[in-house]
């Protein structure tokens, strides 16, 4: 929420003319993403920590081993596809290809919303409950954090789509797409991390 409130803060106001408005928004968004990355870092380190200190029967109690890989793959695939569409749109807006921008952003937004819906239903049908031991708790926390990302980003997504379709972003002035891109890419990256982590580091250390 930080950036969307402040991000375009004095965009339309002319009184602070000696300030690089766009640079301001860029710096702010970068720092916001950094703060968000710190959250993810602590989550990941907690995962590795618990995995390191646990023994088998408590890290994977009975029945919590089998994450449905196909479901997670679909989920992450949607996320990545959305990111790719966004890259396309970003490239297009720098080239000034208006139609492609509108197409890419709209596709990306739809894929984002699809990911959100899919993640929520996936969360509802996990093969284990959050009360099912160390791994289960960490996994639910990761999924929940990802869903929080998607929900928070929903505001950006809708706003960005609407404003793109209004044709507000030109070849010269498209800071909205650039900055929200930072957040977008980071969410995709975190989705991929959350997808790979249980695959790379499944069992406890011995």
């Amino acid at each position, binding site marked *: 929420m930080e950036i969307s409130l402040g991000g375009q803060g004095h*965009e*339309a*106001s002319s*009184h602070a003319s000696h300030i690089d408005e766009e640079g301001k928004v860029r710096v*702010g968004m970068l720092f916001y993403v950094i*703060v968000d990355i710190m959250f993810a870092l602590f989550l990941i380190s907690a995962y590795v920590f618990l995995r390191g*200190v646990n023994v088998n029967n*408590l890290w994977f109690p009975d029945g919590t081993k089998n994450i449905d890989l196909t479901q997670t793959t679909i989920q992450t695939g949607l996320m990545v596809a959305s990111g790719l569409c966004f890259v396309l749109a970003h490239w297009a807006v720098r080239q000034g290809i208006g139609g492609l921008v509108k197409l890419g952003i709209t596709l990306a937004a739809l894929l984002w919303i699809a990911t959100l819906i899919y993640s929520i239903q996936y969360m509802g049908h996990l093969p284990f409950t959050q*009360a099912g031991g160390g791994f289960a708790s960490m996994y639910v926390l990761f999924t929940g954090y990802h869903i929080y990302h998607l929900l928070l980003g929903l505001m950006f997504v809708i706003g960005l789509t609407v404003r793109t379709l209004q044709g507000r972003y030109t070849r010269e002035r498209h800071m909205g797409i650039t900055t929200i891109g930072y957040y977008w890419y980071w969410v995709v990256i975190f989705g991929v991390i959350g997808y790979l982590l249980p695959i790379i580091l499944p069992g406890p250390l011995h």
Partner: protein
Amino acid sequence: MSWTRKLVPSYFSGAVLAAIGFIVGSQYVWRVIGGVNWDLNDPGASGNFLEQGFLAGFVLMTLGWLIGIGAFKYPFTWMLGLKDPDHNEELRLAGKDAGIIRYFRFTTDHKVVGIQYLVVTMIMLAFGGLGAMLIRTELMFPGAWAFPKETYNTIVTMHGMLMILTIISFFVGPFGNFVIPIMIGARDMAFPRLNALSIAFLIIAMAVYAFIPFMGIGDPLTTGAGVQTGWTVYGTLADQTGIGVDALALAVILAGVSSQMGAVNLITTVIAMRAPGMSYTRMPMTVWGSIGASILSALGTASLTVDLVMIVMDRVFRTSFFFAATAGDFANNGYIGGGSAWLTQNLFWFFGHPEVYLLVLPAFGFVMDVTSVFARKPLFGYKTAILGLMGVVVLSFLVWMHHEFVSGFLPELRGFYMASTELISVPTGLIFLVLLGTMWRGRIWMTVTMGFVFAFTWSFLIGGITGIYLSDVPADVQLHGGMFVTAHFHYTIVGGALMGFLGAVYYWFPKMTGRMMDEKIGWISFWGIQIGFNGTFLAMFYVGLQGMPRRVADYSPLFAGGNLVASISAFVLGASVILYFYNVIYSWKAGPIAEANPWGAKTLEWTTPTPVPLENFGEIPVVTSGPYNYAEPATPSGVPARGVEAGPAIG
């Protein structure tokens, strides 16, 4: 209907919606759905419905507050692609000729936000001090004679956490908002709405915090009222203590978000909005100190948030982040375990140690600034000071495990953390070098602020030296977790941050209110504070060496003498702080009118008229020299100082 346009949106409408939100959320869970059963292992589990209700209530309360103060207006106009607000709307939102109501509103003007922060943090400080007085009352004599033990534990917890939240925000909040944009020649913070939102988050966090002692009294299904964990909310105990811990966790998370917003905002402001000519080496030290603090809170706070989220999930959703499966866990129903008790220690202290530097860094900067002002001498080594501040920032992330020297976690790393902890005294020493060098052969003008600077030097010196004892493993094994530690960090935090804050209020009061603070009462409260503070915590050092543990409601008669001295001095300290508050209130009403530049400082905020107009500067000044060149002729009021030409703004 002008009064409705005055009152809606405002903090009053926000309060109304917040109350409605709380009632709706909690009652929905309690009455309508009767609680969600999250524990499939134990289908009958109903022990945490009450907590689920409170949690839902708090969340809706926050949402209602934000809606009620109109924080979501801009995001939705932006989201729906409506017309962007033009300059006049911006100014109206910044409280242009809105009168007194702008202080009770979602107002984007950084000066209004600064005043709001000042008032809110001072109220928080008062309540934290109230907790301290109650603690010292209980410890005045052996035996839990004043309060029951669980009440005492709750008081200790609330005092600790409330003071930490206060001190996190009481420098970067009021002065970082009010002064720093003017200091660097900006018209406002980088993200004014974000700024207003951060104080709104702090206020609602405090509203949630106020629930702690009253939650779940007399309910058979809860673990009782209050929080008995101490401010280090270790997950193991927090999972079991009274359900006030839910309110504590949510309040601290909200306050953490608030401080992160403030940090992002401040860093962006300093990076992107400096006036032309205001290079990084021309910024006053206060700015550098606040930057350091902002970096720490932007990077560190997340750790505590994750810890608290895990605690709430453990309590309410029955996850097992902190339940190692011990025999103790087998006694309860339905917990599988698989967590680690060391995880909560690490998560907490990775925030906890950078955080104590986050408390004192702005005070470092301010103290160096003000020493230069009142000694009429430039800073003794500007780059040295920056080196000191940034060295502290970097090193503070490498020392957190000295809080776990006796926890048995990776004992082979103790050597490294001993080294890094002792190393951090080098940058801190540089600060002292700068202070002494600036005082040396100056023209020291003993105002109350300067008195607080000397008090800072004295107390932080003691705090730092005792810190060396605690950084050393064999000594720490003996002193760890005792009253010695309590006295040590009170000497650093109270003696560092609080002395700086009290001095800063005195120093910038003329700029904020246009009036001087009363000097006589100022000196009376100053000496009272010094006597009370040193009496309290030197006595605490003594009982700590004698071997008194922390956070005990009852102690051996062996420690009675020291504790009696500490309690009486603490009451002196409390009374003097009350006098200081009285001084603030009295001078705000009836203090002598201040001249434009009462201290003869050269920093930019004294070049603006008082009260500072809405956008601070008519023309953005062009800065041509550093903040401390007193060689230039002293300036009559109003005329730009320090080689500032009122020139056309450079785009």
